[in-house]
């Protein structure tokens, strides 16, 4: 068994790693982190259900109310159609911005240490987590799409456009989730994070054109 201190424990398949192998490992490590997230969603579908509540409230209740406010509709399309896109973005944003909480949770538990002692480069871990947030946001997007269809919103069902939306969701949530991870690293506790998360989401949401046209904003 004992050959030399350095090589013992190294399976043959892992010896002499080329650049190509290293790159392949990197991709597998990144996707592996994201795959774990998909498995978690699969085990706990109730989580998806609870997170569907907010979009339902927005589209079915507040949307109806807001639609009656004079001037809020953008004119050429029904207000609910306008709002649906906004709520899609909002759901993805919220999932991503609060993603850092789960990192703090995993750190407190100790689960994160398993990742940190592995040979996976730090960037692969962060990228994997960003993808994971994207996966969560996509599941959220699916819910909003289903709701919008149910409510008769005029959705463009061109697969290319849907792919474009999915790509935008992935990119947006990857960006906001990494920001969220940075904040998590700085504040370190869930309580502080909640405060900062709310401070961030409120202005981003209300200063966007998610629920009313930007032209209504005071210049």
């Amino acid at each position, binding site marked *: 068994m004992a050959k030399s201190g*350095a090589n013992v424990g190294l399976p043959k398949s*892992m010896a002499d790693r080329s650049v190509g192998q290293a790159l392949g490992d990197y991709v597998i490590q990144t996707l592996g982190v994201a795959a774990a997230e998909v498995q978690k969603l699969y085990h706990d579908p109730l989580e998806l259900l609870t997170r569907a509540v907010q979009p339902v409230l927005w589209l079915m209740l507040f949307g109806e109310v807001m639609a009656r406010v004079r001037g809020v509709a953008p004119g050429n399309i029904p207000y609910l159609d306008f709002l649906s896109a906004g709520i899609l973005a909002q759901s993805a944003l919220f999932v991503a911005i609060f993603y850092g909480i789960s990192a703090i949770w995993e750190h407190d538990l100790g689960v994160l240490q398993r990742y940190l002692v592995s040979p996976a480069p730090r960037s692969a871990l962060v990228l994997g987590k960003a993808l994971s947030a994207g996966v969560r946001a996509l599941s959220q997007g699916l819910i909003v799409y289903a709701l919008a269809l149910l409510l008769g919103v005029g959705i463009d069902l061109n697969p290319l456009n849907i792919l474009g939306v999915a790509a935008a969701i992935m990119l947006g949530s990857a960006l906001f989730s990494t920001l969220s991870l940075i904040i998590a690293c700085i504040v370190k506790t869930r309580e502080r994070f909640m405060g900062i998360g709310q401070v961030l989401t409120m202005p981003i949401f209300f200063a966007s054109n998610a629920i009313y046209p930007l032209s209504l904003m005071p210049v």
Partner: protein
Amino acid sequence: MPDDQATAPIVTIALQAFALTRKFGDLTAVSEVTLTINQGEIFGLIGANGAGKSTLIKMLTTLLPPTSGSATVAGYDIVTQPAEVRRHIGYVPQLLSADGSLTGYENMLLSARLYGIPRRERAERITGALARMGLSEVAHHLAGQYSGGMIRRLEIAQSFLHRPTVLFLDEPTVGLDPGARETVWEHVLDLRDRFNRTMIVTSHHMDEIDKFCDRIALIDRGRIVAVGTPSELKARVGPNATLDDVFLRLVAAASETETEGNYGEIRRERRAAQEHG
């Protein structure tokens, strides 16, 4: 040298530390630790809460850079070759490290991917490792439903999947009942015997350290105050001494000036015990 090592053909060095030191501000958590651990050894680290065991392990597993000094693990330098070190070690942290919202198999799969185990070998290796740990039947149950002992065994299987040269186990039996503790140790011994790997274990249970470790180091306020086989250390204190006596005698003066065993650490420790219990 323990008896079972006498028959091993070549003894190579698994870990070597030289004057390894870590300071946190004014506090010196680990002070000039010099240590050599051979391949195939089960090496116990004992010491009071806050003596520096966890800080030492964190440095050796590259989670924490040393303030000064150096160490090689599996032949690689912890400061200049951390990625290579990580590739050749396994670490079972004191805290819960298996993900309770994944199944045992999925936890193993994640480890397999992180450690770059080729796709064609994954399923076989995972199934084999779970079987060795007696977890085949619960492989597809969520780890959150496992008992404390089962979670520990899963974590050991995860950390050993890539056959590390050195496996670090930070209080692997904390919060476990005697039966589960025994089982965890049996599996650790089995892995050592089967693969001739080095195990570095911390524990507060002197009885199990005495029973299972080939050699031990006693750490007190960041320094190693004694190294040797359990019987050597016991002989130093007296004819009928137990390891508890050794511990009490050699660290007796330390307990009053405990600096690191603060509220946060106690809270963490209790929580770890609760999660694994």
